[in-house]
């Protein structure tokens, strides 16, 4: 990113923070948390200890960060190197991101950047300019993508409460600031479980590693009645609903399952992972030393803010998480597809200088498709 753009974004972010200190708070037990931040074009600064909101606000004003992070873990000595921090416990966090849900990029919402010639164009298998296949993909605002991530959050919530016994009050949903959600489970009995255990919880949620025997399918002495039923609790019931569709279908499907045999059922279970498993990022859940974007801070991949979601159904990230003001600014942009923010449509722009509200300019600059004039 060029210096002019960096200055523009730093100033815009700083203004946002100055005007929205009310959104930015240190979490509970702040002196046990590790904080970190990144600057535009800079590396990560970690192992920072902050004691209060005032410390945090000072850090934001002094450093003009592009991104701010805080650990879900509590440590005795959060500012020491990792091995000396003395880990105490950590909230469990689940990350559901649109990129992990899609089988292919949404045609109308994705653009490609060629790594060889830097050409930006709408979705294509190769660069229309130099035919290179070394491409990076950038998705812009996509309501369908948000809808699918919301559906996953709802399904995850059900497993957390029904299966894992987590109190609904302890589950908090945050929009990640780009194209996903972070689901925090705090004050639960899982706070002090380690990384391996969390990986197992992630596998459970993702429906990974199931075996036919779990659902009553044995290699020998097979009995129809032991296969999952609609009224079964947990994955048994969920699998039954997915497998049979309707109760009246059960006998027919059961016959198919039985005649297919053990290996085919095993294969089917593996396939079901994609359809009924919740698409969380397991690496996030199992990492007990990670620092997460701080709620209330801006995500420099989009210029949108990571915020608490009170009503998931009604939540529209492209309106509710877009806090940058609408002062008109001039930018040069190459955005071959349309996007929508604060209920306004922008683009397509063909390598041209345009005047847009600052929130749209920031969004495009963060996505790497615009520069300030």
């Amino acid at each position, binding site marked *: 990113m060029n210096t002019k753009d960096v200055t523009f974004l730093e100033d815009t972010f700083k203004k946002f923070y100055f005007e929205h200190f009310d959104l930015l708070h240190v979490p509970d037990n702040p002196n046990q948390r590790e904080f970190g931040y990144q600057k535009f074009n800079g590396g990560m600064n970690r192992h920072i200890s902050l004691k209060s909101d005032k410390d945090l606000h000072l850090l934001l004003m002094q450093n003009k960060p592009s991104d701010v992070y805080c650990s879900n873990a509590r440590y005795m000595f959060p500012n020491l*190197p*990792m*091995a000396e921090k003395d880990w105490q416990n950590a909230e469990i966090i689940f990350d559901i991101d649109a990129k992990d849900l899609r089988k292919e990029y949404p045609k109308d919402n994705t653009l490609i950047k060629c*790594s060889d010639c830097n050409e930006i164009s709408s979705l294509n298998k190769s660069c229309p300019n130099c035919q290179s296949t*070394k491409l*990076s993909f950038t998705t812009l605002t996509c309501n369908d993508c948000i809808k699918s991530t919301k559906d996953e959050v709802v399904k995850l919530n059900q497993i957390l409460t*029904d*299966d*894992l*016994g*987590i109190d609904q009050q302890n589950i908090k949903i945050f929009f990640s600031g780009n194209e996903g959600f972070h689901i925090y489970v705090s004050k639960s*009995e*899982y706070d002090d*479980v380690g990384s*391996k*255990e969390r*990986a*197992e*919880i992630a*596998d*459970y949620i993702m*429906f*990974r*590693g*199931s*075996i036919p*025997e*779990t659902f009553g399918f044995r290699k020998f002495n097979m009995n129809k009645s032991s296969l999952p039923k609609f009224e079964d*609790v*947990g*994955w*048994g019931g969920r699998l039954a609903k997915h497998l049979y569709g309707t109760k009246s279908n059960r006998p027919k499907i059961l016959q198919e399952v039985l005649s297919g045999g053990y290996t085919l059922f095993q294969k089917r279970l593996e396939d079901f992972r994609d359809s009924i498993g919740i698409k969380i990022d397991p*690496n996030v859940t199992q990492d007990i030393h990670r620092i997460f974007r701080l709620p209330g801070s801006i995500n420099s991949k989009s210029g949108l803010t990571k915020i608490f979601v009170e009503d998931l159904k009604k939540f529209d990230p492209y309106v509710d998480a877009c806090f940058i003001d609408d002062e008109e600014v001039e930018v040069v942009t190459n955005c071959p597809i349309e996007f929508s923010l604060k209920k306004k449509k922008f683009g397509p722009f063909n390598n041209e200088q345009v005047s847009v509200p600052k929130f749209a300019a920031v969004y495009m600059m963060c996505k790497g498709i615009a520069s300030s004039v």
Partner: protein
Amino acid sequence: MVNLGNDEIVKYPFLAEAGKYLSDKGFSLEQFGTDPDLKKIVENAFERIITASEGRIFKSDFSSNNSALPMEIFSFLIAVILLKLSGMNTLIRRFSLAEARRAEKFLEKDLMNYQDATKTKLSLQILKELFSVTVEKSDKGFTILVRDYLKHSINFYEREWKLINRKVVNGKVHLTPHETVRLVRKELDRHIYTKINSSSSPDMIIGFETYVDKLKQLAKKFEVKTVESKEFPPCIKHAIEVLEKGENLPHSGRFMLATFLLNKGQTVGQIAPLFKNAPDYNPKVTIYQLNQLSGISGTTEYKCPSCEKVKSQNLCFPVPACDTIINPLQFGRKRV
């Protein structure tokens, strides 16, 4: 602590304080080496070790335990002394595992003892005090908190122990009595092993020398020698192929490849060029990350992920030789 009667100590002899038990019964260790009436106990103890070393479970003779000389308990305690005198760790390991499996059988039986509620209560108490596992009785079996279940189940490689293969309702895992006890086998084994290892080693006791020598000879039988082929496992070959083609290898694949090669003794400088063809190759980042994984930059030296993990990341392309391994690092290793 759990209050144990004689018949409970027979089942769970590792719960008794050895020295105290002997002196309470009016015996000293030396007597076992010299008193012809006690010779049978030493022979029994020796037999108990041999049985364990062969992977079998020692059969208990409960008839003797109501006598003044509870053979079963003594044989365990003397077996521990013989093992300590031999100093053969491999035998101690085999012995503690066999004793854990023996105790497991009794625990399971006691858990299912619906006629005598005190037996169930006692076994639940043992599970709680020894392994901090709170087990509750349910209609059809037992339940345990998911958190407690995971603490133990992560030690198992068999897929049936994965949480996904359990009935999980409202934060609790449902288990049969057998599964409940099986869950703590490893900890039971570790408990017995630690207890034996941490007990003080006595000086050689007259009359024990022959047994101790035999144990030393026996331990040699279990020395394992292995040879290793230079061939890479298919998951690693696949990862290298993907990179060579210039295709994108996911982060988990890069982690697996790098840790595998580092664990096999390759240097960061030898490994780094492999990533040259990656679409997002950045030499600085590559070296930084390899240094992190190798422990050069940080303090942790990362280990190559298990086959289970590799499989769950869709990076596994098994061949028949993979059937007997649980980590890619073991590929091509054979006992001779």
